């Protein structure tokens, strides 16, 4: 163990290395890689969002205005794939990269080089995926779920499949890294039960990722061989079954949706105590609830398949299991409210987004619970009611939490305060327009408008127009967000203190703002009152 060897490796010891390629493409620094992830995710949000704008534009009024149906289907599938694998997941990984080492007092991620690989796979994967739009075969147009036999008709299936393989590899390596960091890199005294809830949520999410990403890889591999190598997995004539694909896909797919919400739960559990100036209510219950949700997420997948003609017993089992998830989720919601109760609250932008999250995610959860009731789902299934449900949990859930996190930690990243005024403008526009955008979709679904259609009966005209207007304005609002980010990073005159927020607790607030290039190279000494959640012995 020669110190020398350890040292000369650290030629970039103080401050970042010079040179663009050197710093960004060869990085082994969790902060730089985190930044890369976040920038990538924002880019993808805009690409996926532009697709969504096209969707909303075509649906603005009945009749085909702008595009051929096939292109519309490409937009639908791509919008979802880009948003899920390009915007939401990388955003969480980016936040994890930046904050987890700071929160547990680690010098960096456990496997820094692999960390860089996990990131750099992504741009190439999406290059591959998006390129299909310009190929003769056309892009995937069978929805993001890619059900066979339809997906087997897609000309350039191989590109999509390999792109998904790459994304899977990236996520798995990222997850392994996060687990190793949390389990092996914590500063002495940072026991598991003293970790911030955000770290806990990521530990469990990482486990989910490693468990289900390979299943997705397997499913799409079978698509690949069925199309190009003449296997019969999904062909009844050869003894297979198209429904088999759906089982494997949703065995991945349902945990996937929790992969997109658990870190959000973590973020909310950081923001709320800070601005309520009161430790999180029921820390242990919060951690336990996340674990419960993760466990249950493995035994509910067929609630996406109530209409494929499952045996009665299966329908009943999956209905009950699905309903159960409401209980731990409820515990979380209640605990957030209880954290605010008796606090001393202020309402800076991160808190506003957190509060919006609690209300709107819960609404999304409610519609989810309604869909869990099989007979009702026979009507809801594949209508805009579903679309409304998952945008409430994904946009006002996952995305709002990410935006909130950005406002919450940005001062620590950049060393500057963002403009509170413009932050609030961004918030109020987002929260109003997102509801104009997605709430009417509940009505459309109940009235019987199927999803994944480019044109509809005139009875659906009114609400679609309202929804589209909301969509355009919500989209435009996100330009404000970019403005705030750029201003904060480069132009803001207002320097951030180390603590940044009066009520902020946890290791990440004990280091200077902006966070130096290398932190905690000597493990910090943990002082329990500094911990995000106070003494959690009770």
């Amino acid at each position: 163990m020669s110190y020398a060897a350890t040292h000369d490796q650290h030629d970039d010891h103080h401050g970042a290395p010079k040179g663009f390629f050197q710093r960004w493409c060869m990085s082994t620094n969790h902060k730089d890689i985190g930044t890369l992830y976040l920038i990538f995710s924002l880019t993808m949000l805009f690409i996926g969002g532009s697709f969504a704008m096209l969707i909303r534009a075509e649906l603005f009024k009945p009749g085909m205005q702008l595009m051929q149906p096939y292109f519309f289907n490409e937009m639908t599938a791509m919008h979802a794939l880009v948003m899920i694998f390009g915007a939401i997941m990388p955003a969480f990984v980016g936040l994890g990269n930046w904050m987890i080492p700071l929160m547990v007092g680690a010098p960096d991620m456990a496997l820094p080089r692999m960390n860089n690989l996990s990131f750099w796979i992504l741009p190439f994967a999406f290059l591959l995926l998006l390129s299909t739009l310009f190929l003769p075969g056309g892009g995937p147009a069978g929805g993001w779920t890619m059900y066979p036999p339809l997906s087997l008709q897609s000309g350039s299936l191989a590109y999509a499949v390999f792109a998904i393989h790459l994304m899977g590899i990236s996520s798995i390596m990222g997850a392994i890294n996060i687990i190793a960091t949390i389990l092996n890199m914590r500063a002495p005294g940072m026991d598991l039960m003293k970790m911030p809830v955000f770290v806990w949520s990521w530990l469990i999410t990482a486990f989910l990722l490693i468990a289900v990403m390979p299943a997705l890889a397997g499913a799409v591999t079978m698509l690949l061989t069925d199309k190009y190598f003449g296997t019969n997995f999904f062909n009844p004539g050869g003894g297979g079954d198209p429904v088999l694909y759906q089982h494997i896909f949703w065995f991945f797919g349902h945990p996937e949706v929790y992969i997109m919400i658990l870190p959000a739960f973590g973020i909310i559990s950081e923001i709320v105590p800070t601005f309520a100036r009161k430790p999180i209510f029921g820390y242990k219950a919060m951690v336990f609830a996340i674990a419960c949700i993760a466990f249950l997420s493995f035994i509910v997948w067929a609630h996406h398949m109530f209409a494929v003609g499952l045996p009665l017993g299966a329908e009943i089992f999956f209905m009950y299991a699905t309903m159960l998830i409401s209980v731990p989720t409820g515990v979380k919601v209640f605990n957030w409210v209880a954290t605010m109760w008796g606090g001393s609250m202020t309402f800076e932008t991160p808190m506003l987004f957190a509060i919006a999250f609690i209300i709107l995610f819960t609404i999304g959860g409610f519609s989810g619970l309604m869909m869990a009731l099989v007979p009702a789902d026979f009507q809801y299934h594949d209508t805009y009611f579903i679309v409304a449900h998952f945008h409430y949990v994904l946009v006002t859930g996952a995305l709002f939490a990410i935006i909130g996190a950005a406002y919450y930690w940005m001062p620590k990243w950049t060393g500057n305060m963002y403009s509170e005024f413009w932050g609030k403008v961004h918030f109020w526009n987002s929260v109003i327009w997102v509801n104009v955008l997605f709430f009417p979709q509940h009505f459309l679904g109940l009235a019987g408008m199927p999803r994944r259609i480019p044109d509809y009966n005139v009875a659906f005209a009114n609400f679609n127009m309202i929804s589209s207007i909301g969509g355009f304005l919500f989209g435009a609002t996100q330009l404000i967000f970019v403005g705030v980010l750029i201003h904060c990073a480069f132009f803001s005159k207002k320097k951030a203190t180390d603590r940044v927020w009066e009520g902020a607790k946890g290791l990440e607030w004990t280091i200077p703002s902006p966070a130096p290039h290398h932190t905690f190279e000597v493990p910090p000494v943990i002082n329990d009152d500094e911990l995000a959640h106070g003494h959690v012995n009770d």
Partner: protein
Amino acid sequence: MGQQHDAYFVPAKSYWPFVAAVVMFTTVFGAAHWLNAEPGETGFGKSVLIIGVIGVLGMFFGWFRSVINESLAGNYNSQVDTSFRMGMMWFIFSEVMFFGAFFGALFYIRMFSVPWLGGHGHGVLTHEFLWSDYTAAWGANGGNGPEQAGGAFRTVPAWGLPLLNTVILLTSSVTVTIAHHALRAGHRGKILLFLGLTVLLGATFLYFQAHEYIEAYKELNLTLHSGVYGSTFFMLTGFHGMHVTLGTIMLAVIWLRVLKGHFNKDHHFGFEAVAWYWHFVDVVWLGLFMFVYIL
């Protein structure tokens, strides 16, 4: 957690990750372009694929060489070692889940889709209206579905080559363990001998597997197209075969590293990682032997 007083090793900036991303992209792009090429046309896909694969191999070589050098330079304290161990264990777990998908498919097909097509349980109407002359069965008579996809075929008897291969892999597991103990005890000669044996056993397994495939195609008309039976048979054994190949190569590399004296009794993660991997491959095979060959 991090009790050591020497700093955790954070490697300097490295170009290998970026290179890795590029070559992986090249590989899959080539593969995709190749698969999508029209029957007649000869795209550039194939050549790109080959370049990509070569690139990947080169990348692994370069990356691991730098890792080995760091390891020899003594940069890796026990905490770094733990990170590596966790990394390897969770990687193997992800592999387990990957095979899980295919075993899951196998079970679903054998327990549900085939019986249902044959009119059992939930499948009464499916059978009555669509496949009324199909009697559900696995293996040679029915395993390729109502349309007899791929034509009549015969299955590989479990008690021939497969049994032999089982014995081979089990022994190889033993030999690798002996080598491990030898390593702990520090008998280099013994390590080299038993590790070498393990490599040879792996190679023989692959030889027999290849033989079995050829026979399946030539004599038994059991092909990838033989309905779901063929699909599951070749996908499962095929993916397992790839893993054995990989494992054998890794074992060979470790053998060389032992020869070069890279390991000592309390610092040999590389060896253990590969040993774990080998045991994993072994366990998967037992599953295969059970559910693909015997039952």
